[in-house]
């Protein structure tokens, strides 16, 4: 059973086809990068995978469960339990400290636990900044708080939409390092990025164009342990996407 399966997923806004007939499989522990020009449907895809939106057509299976037509209330519950979200704009609550921002995710999930939240901050190197408000933190630090918050409930899938888009190079390295570590610990990650350096870290890069998968690039660095059972499906998707675009 794959962690995530998209089968013929489309999303239309009025006459705009934001996503068109997407097939994609993500295995547990896999790191996927999604690239593509602005407006190609990357965020739309993240919203659907992250249970914040429903596809117009097609099927989305998360951990084997079809979530494509769940009610908003159920999607909220699934999102809370299975998904960790990292945003380009960090989206910290400005009147709560770094620590409290992490605890908010615990609060909505189950129980706030200060010690555990502090450990999560320590993990992203922000233990000393726990009592600071977002306005007292740099962009890189804010993003690390956002990552600590995304991790706190042990999500099965981490979604990051351009997590380094607002960061300088040094902070980008720090954030990438944390993502790499998460991946090594077994988390599945889908990261949307414009940055080839970030994409290089991933096992596969899915390139979206006009709402369709244009190609899928396997990263050589990971090839040695790239799962065999997926390669057939990947080639198929690759061929289909390429043909449509040619």
């Amino acid at each position, binding site marked *: 059973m794959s962690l995530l399966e998209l089968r013929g997923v489309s999303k239309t806004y009025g006459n705009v086809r934001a996503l068109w007939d997407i097939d994609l499989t993500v295995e547990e522990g896999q790191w996927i990068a999604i690239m593509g020009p602005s407006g190609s449907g990357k*965020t739309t895809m993240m919203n659907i995978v992250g249970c914040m*939106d429903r596809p117009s057509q097609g099927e989305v299976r998360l951990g084997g469960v079809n979530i494509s037509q769940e009610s908003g209330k159920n999607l909220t519950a699934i999102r*809370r339990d299975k998904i960790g979200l990292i945003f380009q704009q960090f989206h910290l609550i400005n009147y709560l400290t770094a620590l409290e921002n992490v605890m908010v995710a615990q609060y909505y*999930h*189950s129980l706030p636990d200060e010690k*555990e939240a502090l450990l999560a901050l320590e993990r992203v190197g922000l233990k000393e900044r726990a009592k600071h408000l977002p306005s007292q933190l740099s962009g890189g630090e804010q993003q690390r708080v956002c990552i600590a918050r995304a991790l706190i409930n042990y999500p099965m899938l981490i979604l990051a939409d351009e997590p380094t888009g607002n960061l300088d190079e040094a902070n980008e390295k720090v954030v990438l390092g944390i993502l790499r570590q998460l991946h090594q610990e077994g988390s599945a990650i889908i990261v949307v990025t414009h940055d080839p350096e970030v994409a290089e870290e991933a096992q596969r890069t899915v390139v979206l164009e006009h709402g369709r998968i244009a190609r899928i690039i396997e990263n050589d660095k990971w090839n040695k342990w790239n799962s065999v059972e997926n390669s057939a499906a990947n080639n198929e998707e690759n061929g289909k996407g390429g043909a449509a675009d040619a």
Partner: protein
Amino acid sequence: MADERKREDAPGREDAPKRAAEPRRERPAGGMGRRAFYLRMVASSIIRRRSRMLVALLAVAIGATVLSGLVTIYYDIPRQMGQEFRSYGANFILVPSGGGGSLSAAEAERAREYFPAGSVVGIAPYRYQTAKINEQPFMVAGTDLAEARKTSPYWFVSGDWPESAGQALIGQEVADTIRLLPGSVFTLTGAAPDGKSFSRDFHVSGVMQTGGTEEAFIFVSLGDFDGLMGEGAFDVVECSVLAAEAELSAAAGRIAADMPGVAPRLVRRVTQSEGTVLAKLQSLVYLVTVVVLLLTMICVATTMMAVVAERRKEIGLKKTLGAANSGIVSEFLGEGVFLGGLGGLLGGGLGFVFAQMVSSRVFYRSIALRPALILVTLIVSVLVTGLACLLPIRGATEVDPAIVLRGE
């Protein structure tokens, strides 16, 4: 609290599908409760965003101030009206002159002849004596109740005036002290001036409010009074006379000359128009109170609407983190209730100062602080703020979590 620690028991979680692989399900013990964190969030939002909240707080506090001030005045006007109306009644009294004077029934009746014919509204003689109910002492007054009713039109009686022997009209203060209502029976005990002790049951026919010391008295007919205490001289005779001050002064002079044991006195009274103005003022205050209540609600609702609009992203984010609609509502409502409570407390205090200022400027009287009114202001303020928040908060639950990634 203990069962809150089990994740699956948390309210609203039944619908959450089970996760395939569970690295860790239980949070270690020692985590803070959900309620504690909820309060921490609400308090942080208000304290750390205080410049924003100040506007809303100001609206609530000003509304509560005007409200509690006006209500104080509203309830105080009748009291003050009572004092004004008092002068409507008796405008001429007879008391025993100093140095062993006494006032007999014959003298009281003779006084009638000293006023112009047809000008006498009523002449009510009074005798006073203390007696006990349940070993608590009270002042008992014996009077001609029919005449007293004419000379004291400002008495507000709930129930009826006594009509037969064995009935009593009691003041509000007495009623409060020993919990009597119209229809109750009480036993009056004591000793007459000649030393003979008595004990007699009376029916409460009515309870009376006057805004004056009479509220501490028990009124019975002269017949009943004489029956208990024995016959005796009057302590005071109140006369209500429709006559100009000059005529009253002339009458006083003649009475003093003719009856050496009696001292006549003029009592000043205000014109009727003043009382009418007070009554009109009260209905005006009532109207203004309602308008202020509405204005406060509109102001709070508008402020909260702006607050919600400004925090759409935050609401969306909380939803992406798994907040249910009820969670979002309770957080905003918590902020609203906190605002209402703080504003109400401020307003209750300031309202008293405001009412005191108005009362001393307009009525030249001071107002007593009513703690109950501050409590009522607090409750009304919380309710009104909560109500005003409901509409904007409904909008808050409609925020789509998808806006968070889009960054709008």
